[in-house]
């Protein structure tokens, strides 16, 4: 089955990267815009070929992207939209243009989703709230900044190793005048009793009602449950995904290298799960990164060791209190109902 050859002059991944340049646009939206572009450039003659071409484009994006989950959600949403779009088959070129416009319109409208979510979350943030958040999320930042206009809040944010994105959040919040403190990833349990509720963003919200987010979210959810604190997830509707992971290791991002053990030195490297490790590196003293105190006794993981760690994890739906989305405030069960209703038709 030959795919529509458009890779000659049109590189979908490059277009995708281009859209991503804009800070505000998240990967799924960029994917939708890239796919909308692909529609116009494609020379498909029928709906079937067009959907085929879009699927190929989505595959390409998934392949070349390091973290494909949220991207996947956006692609699937757009392809489902294209498939279900009512069309009269007389003028296909016009149909394609129409689809492309719809795609662009959606992407533009989607930028307002974060504001909607921020407004919804406002009702749950009381004066003098102490909020715990994880790593860096644009929608959470928007919600916090929005709340700051009318209420007093203070925020704990985790450092979120290894990428240290929590510090980015710290800078943004402090610049806005919100009292903010960075806590170690391992100090989440320590701080949980001080916190009123937990607010996190998402890479994807899955069909079970669970959450896929930067590694550390699951931990936070479990600790919040143990401490009886509400755990809220903020997610735009284009992040709802039909995936259904049965466990952490059922995620598409999980590969055999993660959490693998190295082959011992001196023995033959037999059939090992970890192709990238030959001998374990002795941990070298590296200058402490990320602007924290540069004590000479501090150590850090090297790249190889970091590569064995996951980037995202899966939080079970029973640990999540509510999911705030532009379609409304949903319980985790409600997410599933929304997804089944949306994709079953």
């Amino acid at each position, binding site marked *: 089955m030959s795919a529509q050859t458009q890779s000659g002059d049109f590189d979908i991944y490059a277009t995708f990267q281009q859209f991503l340049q804009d800070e505000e646009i998240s990967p799924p939206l960029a994917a939708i815009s890239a796919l909308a572009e692909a529609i116009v450039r494609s020379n498909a003659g029928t709906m079937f070929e067009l959907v085929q071409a879009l699927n190929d484009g989505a595959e390409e994006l998934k392949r070349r992207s390091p973290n494909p989950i949220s991207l996947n959600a956006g692609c699937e949403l757009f392809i489902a939209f294209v498939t279900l779009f009512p069309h009269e088959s007389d003028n296909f070129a016009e149909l394609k243009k129409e689809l492309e416009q719809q795609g662009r319109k959606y992407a533009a409208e989607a930028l307002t989703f974060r504001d909607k979510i921020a407004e919804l979350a406002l009702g749950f943030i009381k004066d003098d709230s102490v909020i715990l958040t994880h790593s860096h999320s644009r929608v959470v930042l928007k919600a916090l900044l929005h709340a700051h206009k009318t209420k007093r809040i203070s925020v704990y944010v985790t450092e979120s190793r290894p990428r240290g994105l929590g510090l980015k959040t710290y800078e943004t919040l402090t610049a806005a005048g919100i009292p903010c403190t960075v806590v170690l990833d391992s100090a989440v349990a320590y701080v949980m009793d001080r916190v009123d509720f937990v607010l996190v963003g998402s890479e994807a919200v899955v*069909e*079970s*009602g669970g959450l896929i987010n930067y590694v550390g979210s699951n931990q936070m959810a479990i600790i919040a449950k143990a401490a009886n604190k509400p755990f809220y997830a903020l997610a735009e509707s284009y992040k709802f995904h*039909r995936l*259904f992971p*049965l*466990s952490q290791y*059922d995620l598409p991002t999980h590969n055999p290298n993660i959490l693998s053990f190295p082959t011992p030195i001196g023995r033959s490297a037999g059939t090992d799960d970890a192709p990238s490790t030959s001998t374990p590196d002795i941990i070298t003293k590296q200058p402490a990164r990320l602007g924290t105190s540069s004590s000479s006794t501090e150590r850090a993981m090297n790249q190889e060791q970091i590569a064995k760690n996951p980037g995202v994890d899966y939080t079970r*739906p029973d640990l999540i209190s509510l999911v705030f989305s532009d379609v409304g405030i949903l319980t*985790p*069960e*409600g997410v*599933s*109902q929304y*997804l*089944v*209703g949306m*994709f*079953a*038709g």
Partner: protein
Amino acid sequence: MAPAPTLDVHPVNGPPAGEPSAGQKSQKQMTKAERRELQEKQRAAKAAKAAANAPNGKLGGKAAKELSALAGAPSKKTGRPSDAASKPPPPGLVKAAQAKAGQASLADQSARNQARGLLIFSHFGLPKPVSAAKGDIHPAIARLALQFSTFKITGANARCIATLTAFKTVIQDYVTPQNNTLSRHLMTYLSPQISHLVAARPMSITMGNAIRQLKLDISGSDIDLPEQDAKDVLFRKIDTYIRERIIIADQVIQETAGNKIKDGDIVLTYARSSVVEKVLLEAHASGREFSVIVVDSRPMLEGKRLLAVLSEAGIQCTYLLLPALGSVISEVSVVLVGAHSIHTNGAVYSRAGTALVAMMAKRHSVPVVVCCETYKFSENIQLDSFTKNELAPLGDLFSSFPNNKPREYLTLENQPHLEILNPLYDLTPPSCITAVVTEVGVIPPNAISSIPVALGRL
């Protein structure tokens, strides 16, 4: 459906209408022991009455004589009465009547056994023997009823397909009487047939849903169509139902559930689900490397058939009985089970023992995946295994314990203070289930109520 639980524990061959009211009035005045005595007397009297009446006029003289001989016999071995009754086939008797004689003798014998009575679970009603065909029972239905009551056809899907196929034959042979229309009369014609099936074995949810759909189709059939055309329309509808809701649904489930099986996985399954069997065979055919643990339980030991099918296909299998589950559960990657039906609150009603497997898996953080077509969805809510269940019939079928002793040593029978309780189904609470795979998607158990929404769109 099931008679409301009352104090007197009669088998549901039903006490004559007059009795309960008389018995209940005085029961309030009697003590417990006196009440028990009264029950025993009533039961014995009824059992004698049941044995005395030959169940139907179709019995040849020889068979009837055997029966009355049996009625007097004080001691009975399980296998013998039915053997004796079915051994000499009086010429000209329909096979069904023969088997009915066997069933009747089983009936009077089990009636005697029920003289002790089950003190719990009696509200399900004890399995009744296939009684005399009241009115016109089509031979296809009679055959089916027999197959159901002797457990030759088991499994929700198999029963539903067999029922619908039998109904096609019945509809084909049906002739609309004068001054009547197919859409109105056919249903009244089918009702006694359905009751006959229910009497043989309580209807499964799948059969219920299919028959409801059939009734809808019949009542919606066009009055103006000539009879054979109307029948053809019905046949097409039945075929479509089977194809779309069962066959094709199974194919979608095979693919979806198969994707959850990864190379190197150890899959555990319980008893024998037709859907799970298909999933495993398909996953194996697509080249996935995995091994299967088949967990089985008495008395039905359905897992043996699954084991045979899987081993034949080349899948590495382990077979063990339910009590041994604890030893292997920590090595299992995923548990795949089928379902008899699934309820709005997400509870799964399935072969007895499934709940144990699910709870054990949950305890060890093993994901439990239920494979279930949407036509098994039942809109009521079930909270436990007692309010609705089915008891396996006593008698030859399931008294093969212990296997290595001759029949005379079937010590579980014939004990005055020992009752055998054998529920066929149990309820797995939604908290133990990780995911339900249907043809409309993978659904978490607490969102099962979204199935009607999805179905409404289809």
